[in-house]
């Protein structure tokens, strides 16, 4: 029998739980908001992974989204949070749409390396652009919602709540998308492209669409991160940032649309504490954590829930 789909229920519970946690533990707000931003990027990456594509360059769209937000405030004086987020999404999807014509022709390591190359081009450009602060980047002023401040030290909860809603909607839409005919093409393309074409669907077009969706989500995540952190620099496009997203994706697993957010949060916690307690060897701790997950939970953190459910039902 097909297991009943509880994703909507779990999402609603997670949303409410997050809001309560945010209210009770204001010290965690920064880390939680940051995790939601990165989770959005990983959600897009998960879509590509399900299609059998590893993008080693989601940092490109992440950075573009962040710089779009920063530039709006810095150069145009626009601080409306919704407009800023929208700009992040638009710039992410437009650039992904343009690059998609080339990217959709490549697979495997070539897809990964080409995406990496594009993100490093952006990094190189930003490092040399004095108007955007070169390697130092610049600060992002706290945004406003309907002329009232949101984010920053005092209004962190409002921005967090907005991030929660965005993540909720994105996860829900992605979950519904997986059930549509186009969404179902993802695992089909991963398994057998030839058959997809011989069923009358265009693999290249499908990949292009998925690449744009992933770009839009990364742009949104970047925009959110810029507002949360209040500072942006070219490192957002550096290959280690993109690698971090893949790291989180592997940590989370591609089993559920909720997994990326959980994975991003676990990653941030591990990193924060590792950095706090062993500033010189924190990478070692993070790496070991991933190793443990790969060995014991090859399908990612999310598979823990599957194991628990099976144990509970038997």
């Amino acid at each position, binding site marked *: 029998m097909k297991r009943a789909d509880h994703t909507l229920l779990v999402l609603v519970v997670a949303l409410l739980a997050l809001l309560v946690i945010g209210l009770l533990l204001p010290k965690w707000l920064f880390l939680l908001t940051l995790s939601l931003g990165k989770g959005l990027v990983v959600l897009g990456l998960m879509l590509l992974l399900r299609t059998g594509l590893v993008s080693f360059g989601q940092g490109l769209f992440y950075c573009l989204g962040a710089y779009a937000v920063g530039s709006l405030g810095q150069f145009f004086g626009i601080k409306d949070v919704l407009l800023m987020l929208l700009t992040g999404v638009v710039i992410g999807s437009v650039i992904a749409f343009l690059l998609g014509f080339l990217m959709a022709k490549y697979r495997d390591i070539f897809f990964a390396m080409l995406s990496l190359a594009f993100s490093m081009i952006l990094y190189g450009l930003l490092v040399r652009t004095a108007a955007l602060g070169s390697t130092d980047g610049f600060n992002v002023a706290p945004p406003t919602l309907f002329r009232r401040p949101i984010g920053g030290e005092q209004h962190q909860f409002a921005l967090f709540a907005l991030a929660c809603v965005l993540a909720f909607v994105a996860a829900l839409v992605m979950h519904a998308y997986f059930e549509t005919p186009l969404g179902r093409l993802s695992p*089909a393309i991963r398994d057998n492209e030839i058959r997809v074409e*011989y*069923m009358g669907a265009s693999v290249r077009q499908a990949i292009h669409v998925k690449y744009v969706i992933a770009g839009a989500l990364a742009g949104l995540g970047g925009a959110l991160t810029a507002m949360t952190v209040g500072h942006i620099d070219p490192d957002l496009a550096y290959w280690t940032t993109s690698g971090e997203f893949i790291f989180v994706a592997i940590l989370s697993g591609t089993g559920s649309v909720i997994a990326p957010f959980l994975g991003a949060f676990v990653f941030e916690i591990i990193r924060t504490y590792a950095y706090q307690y062993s500033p010189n060897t924190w990478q070692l701790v993070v790496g070991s954590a991933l190793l443990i997950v790969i060995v014991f939970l090859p399908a990612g953190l999310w598979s823990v829930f599957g194991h628990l459910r099976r144990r509970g039902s038997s």
Partner: protein
Amino acid sequence: MTPILDAQGLCKKFGAVTAAWGISIAVEPDTVVGLIGTNGAGKTTFVNMVTGYLKPDTGIISFKGRDVTALHPRQITQLGICRSFQIPQLYDSLTVLENVIVALGIVLRNSKPRRLARTPKIVPGHGTTLMAAAETMLARFGLAQYRNSPAGVLPEGVRKLLDIAVALAVKPEMLILDEPTSGVSSDEKFGIMDTVMNAVRSEGVTVLFVEHDMEIVSRYSKRVIAFYEGRVLADGAPAHVLGDPDVRKYIVGGQVAVRAEDIARA
């Protein structure tokens, strides 16, 4: 009756090897055609040219009066020719049911106005019609018991059936089967062919099938086309073609001789 498929003067060379040497075949709608010939005779090359995988060096292929010679496999599939493969091409990590749902989803997406098809549906349970159609397909092919098994772990005979089922799920007007019973045990082969032919009959699909097994060919085809060295050697009713002296000498006889050799060796 006007032919549904009309191939005229197809030639194809691979370097020094000529795989097709002026093949002309017209197929009437709603019939079952068996393609026979030894390995390298040009059957699969012909099938690959019709389905757009290979482009003929010269010659024209028209389907329903439309020139499809230069079209991509995807476009030819959309026009109504679908095929199965000698080695089943499935989505191995997906279940049997999901394999069929992907096919039905593509058909749904291609048939609807694009704007509608792209709108994500968030209404719960919207997939029920697709699911029901897929279940019907599985029941018709006797695959219902495997519905939740990943396609990658199925026995070869079941994979063959599923491969044909997904091809038929795309709702073709012409179905091309490349050796539907190869690699399948001899007790399974008639079962597969009976299932396929019953399913095809209810859909009114024209069938072309490549086959080495003369028992299958004589039992299921209404017309047989014999290939030899890239040419059509004989074409007509099964009894006529299988009784043709040249066909007996080069194709059918060859098969019998090989079998005798095998027995002698054993």
